[in-house]
Each structure stands twice: as structure tokens, then as C-alpha cells.
């Protein structure tokens, strides 16, 4: 389901249930959640009752009332339909997820290490289960023993298996995924029904949807506006009474319903659901709607260098020997040291030596060499054979290892000079030492991703500062930062420094987003306003963040910000549109309402609507149809462009403000022409 295309709203699988939903959502309990539409329902019901009464007593002009009432109910149904369509799209997605949540049996381990079969649902948090090849992992948990390759296609859509192992940063497993080889012991961290997949299903279905802070505020505003218009219309009978006339209830209701912000009121929950949906389709799970909104507010993005700003792998591009050592000699040693080094850097050294100096890769076995792997303590790797030891590693680590750090000062300066030069270019220097003799330095180059510079420029325009996080030394970091165009960088970063940086930014009044995966990232993830945990990460990291990226692609942070902004923009733009519509509606209905009292008021009928009745009917029809017309926009979101706030406001104000002012004038006039032609009014 990676980057799945959204189902079209006209898809039959969505239309059918949505049409049904439009009616089932008429339940008062559901309507009460939306103040604007609830009020519409109340007045519609009231009018219907009055209409039935009139029908019994045989009053006149019932055809007109009937049409108004019909459109009042349509308004309501259209609003429900909008929400149902948005939910429907989520449900379609949930359906595919649900398929993975098949009945599982778990192998529950007891204290003595024996296992017995239990149903997956009966597992409790803290239980330990054994999972063997072919088994479905029964619930979310953490690997406490063993290593296995796991197929996580069910949640990520990625068919290549991933490694899950105890300890380290890849210890989290997700219920519903399948172990392909080896075995693991998993300590269950989520009870049945609240696993990752369960959460995902309820999220995309909108079942657990809670209103976000901004949505609540918007609803408050819409309720306030509704109250204002209650007053504006409820006082009209008294005014008209003074002028010696009266206004039919049905006309008052028509004015009221067209004035209150039904357009945005009808679409607000659809917009919210669709926003969440966009995120899910992007393979990012937000733990709350609040997090999505916060994403739109981010001022500072902390981006890991590797994988986000630069391609994951650094490549060896040059050998720089010290004086008295031939380049080929250095290349030879470097290749030997890297023969068994399976990291991309290591392989690139072998390749470079081969391509540039024709040194063919040799076989470790035939050399009788033993590989000395990289450790966090030594920060070096290399080979030992025939009494020869070759090491390569971080320059300071290598220097320290050579004769306990006692290196001739001129040699030291030379090495230092070479590595500084490399660092200034943004490269990583790896020193090579053979039998305690410094040979030179390998230049590992960081490849900055194409197009990333432009992305950062866009972010800057939106007022977002980017900070590159890297373990590199400051000089290297500065060079890469300059090349990539980030605003700032944190070099030789430790988790503590990250946390500290976040706190400092927040103290300055900034909202910070970051992504991370390791357990030691957890505090920073928790501190950040938007913390995106990588799905490959630890349970601790996942719990600390407020979003999980199923693809574990840190670059996505940028898109997440965009999605958050788009959500609010859509809300704001449609609110503006909805309120701006009122001007035209006033000019359609008010003259029609009062023209019998003061015939001169016909001069306010600037649209030239045919009759008072057609004017009122046109306004209410427009008011209902505009909801349908705007459903696609509210699902898709308004176009999001990375331009400055001011330009964005100007653009949206022009399109949705001015548009909202003009469109209804045209629309109402058109409808008036049509219904007059059809003889409806």
C-alpha cells in the first residue's frame, strides 16, 4: 500500500456506503457533534413539522415551502455524504490492513522455557512468546533474544525482509508481520486490540478520530457565527412587524441556513479525515490529529545527515599518502584492510583501489588473514595476516593507537593537514596504518542528494530552519552543510546534544520536528514537538515519537510538514469561502424578503433574480450544491505551494476570499435562470 493512489470519490465501492452513510448519519447523536449541521437539522425538522401542519390545514404556497424543505434536508445529507466519503476512503484502506490481522496462535513461553499454544488475543503485555519461521508475530513487542528476518510487507508494503534482533536499534516487531528465518523471543508490548495495526485501522477509518485543537477552535468560531445569525434572523419578524408586515417562517429559515457557515460546517470533518488519510497514504502514522497540526507549525527541522541530506553511503574517491609512501602502496593497504568490510564505504575502497590502481581484490582465506571488525571502542577495523596488521579508522582513533599516541610531530602535522583538507571539502578522512606506520588517508566523500538544496530553499521561504545532525567533525559538517544549503548543523552530535538543541530552540519559541530510531533518541523524540520514529527503530523510540514512518525514510519529515500545513490551509480557505458567500446570499434573500413591505427595495436585487421566491430558492439550492461541489477539494486539500506566508495568504485570499464573494453571485443567478425556466418558482 506504499504511496497508494487514493480511491476516487466516485468509486462505486465508496459511493454506495457513503450514500447510505449520508442517511444513517442523520442520527441526532452523531449530528450533535457538529454544531452547525445540528442547527440545520433542528430547523429542517421544525419546518417539516410546520409544513405537515399546513398540509393538513390546507394553506397556500405549499409548493414553494416543499422545495425549500427538500433542499434543507439535502443540505444536511450532502454534509453527511461528505463525511461518509472521506471515511469511506479510509475504510477501503483499513480493509486491506484488516486482512493481515488474521487469527494467530502464539507460542507462549513459561518461566522454564517451554512453550504452549495460546490464541493471539489472550496475550497480555509482558508475556514472552517464541516466534519461529513461518509464524505470524502475534502482537507488537520487543525482541529480547535472537535474530530473525521478518517480512513486514503487511504494514510497509515493502516485500524485502528486514532484520529484527535483540538489543540495538532494530528490536521492535509489529504484530501481523511474519518471521521468515531463524527465531526470536518477543516480549509483548501491546495487548490485543491496541496493537500497531489496530491503531492504524482505527486511525484510517476515522473511528477514533478526536477533534484536534484547531478543529475545536474552528468549531467554536462556526458555532459563534451561527449564534450571530440566529440573532440576525430571529429579530427580523419584529422588524417586519413594525413595518406592518410579516415574514414566513420558511423564508426566515432559508435566510438563516444560507447565512450560517454550512459550507465549512459540512466539510470540516471530511477535511480532518482526509488530512489524516493523506498522511497514512504516505505511510506515516500519526498517533494523534494534534501531531498532524503541529507538523504544520514546525519552525525547525532537525535532519540526520546520512540518508536525508546525503546518500546513505560515503564513497572513497582518493588515496592521499603521507610523504614517502606511494599512492599505490596506500591503496593496496587500504584495500587489504577493507576486503572483509561489508559496509558500503568499505566496498567502495576496494573498488577504488581496483579501478584506479588495478589492484585486484584478494581472497582473505588464501591470505590467511583475520578480519578485525569495527567496534565502538577502537573505532577502527582492519586485518591481521602474516604478522602484518593493517588498520583503518577515524584519524584521531588511529593516531591514538599508533604507539600510544606518540607520533613524530611532523608526521602528526602532515596527517592532520591532509585530513583537515579533506574535512574542509566535506569528506571524511580515514587514516590507514600498517604495522604502526602511518601510510596516509582515504578520502571518503559524502554525496549530497540531488535537489536537496532546492528543498531547503523552499523550506526557508516557508520560514522553516533546517539543522543538520551529524556525527562528523565540525569541519566536515560545515562543508556538507554549505553544500546542501542547510541553515545550521550540529556536529559530533550525541543524543544529549540533540535533546539540548531541541530545548534551546523551543525556549526561543520554536516548534521542532525531528526523526530518530534508536533508544537513545527517545528523549529527544519525546521532547520534540513532532517526533517521527522510524518503523525500524526500537519500541522506546516508537513510543516516544508522535508519528511513525513505516518506510523509515527520514526525508519524509519535509513532506509531513507540508501535509500538516495543507490540512489547516484547506480548513482556513474553505472557511473564508463559506463566510464570503454570505454577501451574495444577503443580496439574494433580503430584498426578496422585504420587497412586499417596501417595493422600492427591489433596487437591492442587484442580481436581477426573477421573483422573490425564485431568489430565495436559488440561494438555498446554491448553498446545498456548493457543499457537493467542494467535496473533492476538501478531500484533496487546497494546492500547497512552498511560498512565503504572505504570498500564501494573498493567494488563498484571492482565490477563496474573492472567489467566495463572486462565485455565489454567478451561481445563484444561474440557478435562478434554470429554476425559472423549469417553472419551479
Amino acid at each position: 500500500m506504499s504511496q497508494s493512489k487514493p480511491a476516487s470519490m466516485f468509486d462505486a465501492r465508496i459511493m454506495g456506503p457513503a450514500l447510505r452513510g449520508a442517511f444513517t448519519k442523520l442520527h441526532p447523536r452523531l449530528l450533535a457533534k457538529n454544531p452547525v449541521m445540528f442547527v440545520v437539522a433542528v430547523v429542517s425538522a421544525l419546518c417539516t413539522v410546520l409544513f405537515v401542519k399546513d398540509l393538513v390545514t390546507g394553506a397556500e404556497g405549499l409548493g414553494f415551502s416543499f422545495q425549500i424543505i427538500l433542499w434543507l434536508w439535502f443540505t444536511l445529507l450532502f454534509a453527511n455524504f461528505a463525511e461518509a466519503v472521506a471515511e469511506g476512503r479510509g475504510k477501503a484502506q483499513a480493509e486491506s490492513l484488516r486482512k493481515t490481522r488474521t487469527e494467530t496462535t502464539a507460542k507462549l513461553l513459561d518461566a522454564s522455557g517451554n512453550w504452549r499454544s495460546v490464541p493471539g488475543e489472550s496475550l497480555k503485555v509482558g508475556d514472552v512468546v517464541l516466534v519461529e519461521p513461518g509464524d505470524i508475530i502475534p502482537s507488537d513487542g520487543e525482541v529480547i533474544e535472537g535474530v530473525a528476518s521478518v517480512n513486514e510487507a503487511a504494514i510497509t508494503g515493502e516485500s524485502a525482509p528486514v532484520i529484527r534482533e535483540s538489543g540495538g536499534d532494530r528490536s521492535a516487531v509489529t504484530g501481523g508481520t511474519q518471521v521468515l528465518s531463524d527465531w526470536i523471543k518477543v516480549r509483548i508490548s501491546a495487548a490485543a486490540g491496541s496493537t500497531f495495526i489496530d491503531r492504524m485501522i482505527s486511525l484510517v477509518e476515522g473511528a477514533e478520530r478526536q477533534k484536534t485543537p484547531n478543529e475545536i477552535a474552528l468549531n467554536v468560531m462556526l458555532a459563534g457565527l451561527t449564534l450571530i445569525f440566529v440573532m440576525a434572523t430571529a429579530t427580523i419578524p419584529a422588524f417586519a412587524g413594525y413595518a406592518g408586515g410579516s415574514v414566513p417562517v420558511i423564508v426566515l429559515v432559508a435566510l438563516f441556513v444560507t447565512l450560517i457557515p454550512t459550507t465549512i460546517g459540512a466539510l470540516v470533518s471530511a477535511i480532518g479525515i482526509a488530512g489524516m488519510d493523506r498522511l497514512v497514504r504516505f505511510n506515516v502514522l500519526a498517533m494523534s490529529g494534534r501531531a498532524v497540526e503541529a507538523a504544520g507549525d514546525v519552525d525547525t527541522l532537525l535532519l540526520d545527515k546520512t540518508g536525508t541530506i546525503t546518500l546513505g553511503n560515503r564513497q572513497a574517491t582518493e588515496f592521499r599518502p603521507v610523504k614517502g609512501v606511494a599512492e599505490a602502496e596506500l591503496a593496496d593497504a587500504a584495500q587489504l584492510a577493507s576486503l572483509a568490510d561489508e559496509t558500503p564505504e568499505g566496498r567502495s575502497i576496494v573498488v577504488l583501489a581496483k579501478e584506479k590502481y588495478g589492484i585486484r581484490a584478494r581472497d582473505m582465506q588464501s591470505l590467511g588473514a583475520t578480519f578485525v571488525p569495527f567496534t565502538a571502542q577502537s573505532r577502527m577495523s582492519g586485518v591481521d595476516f602474516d604478522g602484518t596488521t593493517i588498520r583503518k579508522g577515524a584519524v584521531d582513533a588511529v593516531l591514538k593507537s599508533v604507539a600510544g599516541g606518540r607520533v613524530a610531530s611532523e608526521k602528526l602535522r602532515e596527517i592532520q593537514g591532509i585530513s583537515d583538507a579533506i574535512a574542509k571539502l566535506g569528506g571524511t578522512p580515514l587514516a590507514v596504518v600498517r604495522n604502526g606506520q602511518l601510510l596516509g588517508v582515504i578520502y571518503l566523500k559524502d554525496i549530497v542528494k540531488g535537489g536537496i538544496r532546492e528543498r531547503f530553499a523552499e523550506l526557508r521561504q516557508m520560514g522553516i530552519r533546517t539543522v543538520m545532525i551529524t556525527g562528523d567533525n565540525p569541519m566536515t559538517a560545515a562543508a556538507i552543510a554549505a553544500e546542501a544549503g542547510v541553515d545550521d548543523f550540529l556536529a559530533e552530535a550525541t543524543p544529549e546534544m540533540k535533546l539540548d538543541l531541541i530545548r534551546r530552540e523551543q525556549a526561543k519559541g520554536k516548534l521542532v520536528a525531528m526523526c530518530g530510531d534508536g533508544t537513545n533518541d527517545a528523549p529527544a523524540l519525546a521532547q520534540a514537538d513532532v517526533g517521527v520514529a522510524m518503523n525500524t527503530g526500537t519500541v522506546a523510540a516508537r513510543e516516544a515519537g508522535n508519528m511513525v514512518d513505516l518506510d523509515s525514510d527520514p526525508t519524509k519529515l519535509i513532506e509531513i510538514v507540508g501535509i500538516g500545513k495543507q490540512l489547516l490551509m484547506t480548513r482556513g480557505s474553505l472557511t473564508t469561502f463559506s463566510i464570503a458567500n454570505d454577501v451574495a446570499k444577503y443580496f439574494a434573500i433580503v430584498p426578496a424578503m422585504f420587497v412586499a413591505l417596501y417595493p422600492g427595495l427591489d433596487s437591492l436585487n442587484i442580481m436581477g433574480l426573477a421573483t422573490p421566491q425564485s431568489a430565495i430558492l436559488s440561494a438555498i439550492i446554491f448553498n446545498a450544491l456548493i457543499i457537493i461541489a467542494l467535496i473533492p477539494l476538501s478531500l484533496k486539500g487546497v494546492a500547497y505551494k512552498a511560498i512565503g506566508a504572505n504570498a500564501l495568504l494573498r493567494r488563498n485570499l484571492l482565490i477563496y476570499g474573492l472567489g467566495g464573494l463572486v462565485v455565489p453571485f454567478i451561481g445563484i443567478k444561474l440557478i435562478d435562470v434554470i429554476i425559472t425556466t423549469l417553472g419551479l418558482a
Partner: protein
Amino acid sequence: MTLQAILFVLIIIGGTALLSWPLGRYMAGVMDPKGGKGTMTGLFQAIVGPLGREEQGWKAYVFAILAFNIVIFTVVYLIQTFQGALPFNPDGMGAVNPDLMFNTAASFTTNTNLQHYSGEATYSYFTQLGGLMWLQFVTPAVGLAAPTAMARALSGRALGNFWVDLQRATFLVLLPLSLVFAALLVIGGLPMTFEGSVVATTLEGVQQTIARGPVAAFVTIKQLGTNGGGFFGPNSTHPLENVSFYTNMIQMVAIIIVPMACVWMFARIVGRIKHGFVIFAVMLCFVLIKTAGSVGFETAPTQAFNDLPIAQDVGNLEGKELRFGATGGPLWAVLTTATSNGSVGAMHDSLNPLAGMMPMVGMWLNESFGGVGVGMINMFLYIVVAVFVAGMMIGRTPEYLGWRIEAREVKLALFALLAHGAFILLGTAIFAATPWGAETLNNSGPHGFSEILYEFTSAAANNGSGFEGLGDNTVPWNITTGLVMIFSRFIPIILPLAIVGFMSQKRRATESSGTLSVEGGVFATMLAVTVIVVGALTFFPAATLGPIAEHVMYMN
């Protein structure tokens, strides 16, 4: 004629706008002295006592405002009750009806100065000066204190101390200004005497009692403090209250200068001059549009005289003084209602229908430039709504000057705006439908409706002007408008202070190119549109049945 009108308008409005700039700087300096230690601060703290030294939170600040207002209301009610026994009563003014005393006390306490009486026929000099003029000093001072506290909170500081702010506003802003303008008006020829009325025998041998009094002192603060309560019944149309073309100009300047300067003061205390320009520009824009409307529609001659052999070449003269010129009346009408002043320079009841609607529009909006201090506060309510919508449109949780606007802020702002509309519309509805209103009218048809609408509009806007034909000194009018004035005064003072109180407890965000700018033309447009759509459109049905209906039915 047209050129003259334009020039006149530009001189008054443009000239005052220029003068308001240095005044705003001065006001910011004395209301919010650097480090909170102005030269007089120590003295002011001493006058109040221990309460003068504490830093008040928004609740304490509001509580102090309310306590002070209860006291001044009571004092003025008592002065009226006992005016017969008090000194400075040369014309022997006696007891006043309790409902009128309530209305007057409410009216002057709330800086409204709606007058259901004629000053020269009802109140002694002691009541006029010691009661009413005193309130004309301290109530705009209350108004000035509120946006000062609000601006402090928005700049991230504590709100300050109401007791000290009140004295700063009274003694350092209003008093010096009053002395300057009073001198100008005295030179212009306004009376200032404590002698009672004089009986003249006219050339035709009729006895004419001429009321006079300490007019100059009263009128000055009436205008500067957006009070508006006249010394005489017909206010600044009275030849002794507004002697000449020259005093008319000075009074018009006095009407708008402090509200204009309040914007600069607010902007300076917040530390955002450019934002101040945006607010000022939006307000100015509304004033200019209303002025164009009022002056323009008033060039239409008196409709009732059209079929008679009457030469009408300077527009409608009914209710206007010749010495002010043709533009003086309608321009004044706009300025006095734009600013919640409410003094009149021509009879609003006798303005042409649409010219008479412009003052109502001014009071419906009530923020361009609004009352002393409170105009800026009312604008703040619209800013909250505009920022909320605009903030969403740029894809961020809305922030104003870095403070987040969330459900609570929106709720409070909308409630205050809602209350304004509710008082006007519900009040008008009740009085239009009952004898309470219908039996007090001076005109019939839509104009009569306008009289009721205007009265409630004026009360809710704390303006005080009226379609004065209305026989409003009745128990229902006195009680209802009295209550409306009180609620309409304190809701828009308390709620904005609550809003900034809540906002300033949040983490303040820094502004960047990604946050909503409140400094450009785009935001100015947004703000203006919000004011029109949220503020004015609500009144469209009422306006249609009042002035608009009168215009389309009877004009030409």
C-alpha cells in the same frame, strides 16, 4: 463645493492623523514608562496606597476596573440625588427621576454619555462638573488603561497596575490635553462662567432666558475623552457650546485625536509600529468611506422641500448650523460615531436617510477609531478572528504576535462581538414590536424604525449620540439602554483582557517568513474584510428596513 468638501475633510482627518503620531508617542511614554518607573509613578502609587504597588494578573486588573467603576457609578448617582442640597446650583435644579438618574449614571460611567435629558434644564453646575465632567475624565482613563495593559501582555510582560495606569491616563494624558484644548476653545469664544442663566428682553420685547455655564471646561473633555455628553441638550449644535467654524474644527480634531493616538500607543507598547500602521490604515479607510458616504448623501436637498418654491443649493440644511458650513454636519456625524464620542454637530435624526446610516455603520463596527482605548480593544477582537482565519489559510496554528489563538481565545472574542450585535438587534426588536418604542417616536415609517435602531446602536456602541427626536426619557428606555450600556462597556474590556491573559500564559512562538505577518497590505485587507463580514453584515436586514427602505421609498 465638492473640492471644498474634500479639502475640508482632508484637513480635519489628515491633519489630526498627523497630530496623533507625536501624541501617540507621548502617550506610550507616559502610560508605559521604561522600566515601569515614570517620574510620577511613585506619587501615583502613594495616592492609591498599598494596592498601587502590586503587579496585577488579568483577573486582578479586571477586578480593579470593576471596583473602581462601581464606586464612580455610586458617587454620581448620589450627587444627582442630592443636587438640590449641593452648591453651585444657581438655577435651583431639583430632584430627578430615579430611572433617569440610573440611566445618566450608567451612561457617564460607561463613557457613553447618552443623554435622556437636557443638561441646561435638568442638572446643576455641581452635577454637571463634579459628577458628569469628573466621569468624563476618569472613564476615558479607564478606557486608556485597558489597551495599555493588553499591549503590555502582548509584548510578553506583566499587565501592570490598574490604579497607576488610571492616574497616568487621567493626569498625564487627558488633563494636559484638556488644558490645551480648553484654552483654544475659550479663545474661540466658548463661555466659562459659574453665573446662572440670564434673562434678556429681546428687541421685540420678549423675555428670553439664556442658559450659560462653565461650558468650555466641560466641552473640552467631552470631546477629548470620546464622551460626547453635551452641556446643553442639543450638544455641539448649540451656539454657546460650539461658537464658530473655528471652534467646530477644533472640536472635530479633539474628537478623533486620542482614539487615533491610541493605535500608535498600542503599537509602541507592543513594539510593533508597522502593525500599528496596518490597524491605523484599516480604521482610516473605514472613516474615509463613511465620510464620503455621509457627506455625499447629504448633498441631496431636503426631500420634503422639493415641491415647494425653496432654493436648495447646499444640500439638506434641516438640523444644521450655518456657521459650520455644509460639510461640517455630516463629517462630524461620521467622526463622532466612528469614535464612540456621540456629541453632535448637526441633528442626526434630520440627516438624509443614507447619510444618517453612516453614523450607524460607524457604531456597528465600533472600532474605527472607536472610543478612547476601547476602540483599539474592539479592533483587537476583530484581529483575533481575522488572525484565526488567516492563520489557517497559511497552514499554521493561528498566532497573533507569536501568541497562539485557540478555542478559548476564539470563543471569548466571538462572544464579545456577538454581544454587541445581540444588544442592538434584540433591543431594537423588542422596542419596535412594543409600545415601549412605538409610542416614543418622533417620525413615522422606516425613519421611526431608524430612531429605535439608532438608540440601541448608540447605547451598545457606548456612543451616546441619538436620533434625538426619540422621546427616550421613559422608564423602559432609561432602564434598558442603561443596562445595555453597562454590559456593552465591560464585556469588551474584560474579555480582551482575559484573552491576552490566557494567551500570554502560552509559549510564545517566534515570527518568521513562515508565520502570519500582521504588517502588510494583505493582512490589512483580511482585517477589513473580517470587520465588514463579521461586524457589519449582521445589521444588513435591520438597515434595509430602516435607512435603506426610507431612501428607496421616499428620496426622489
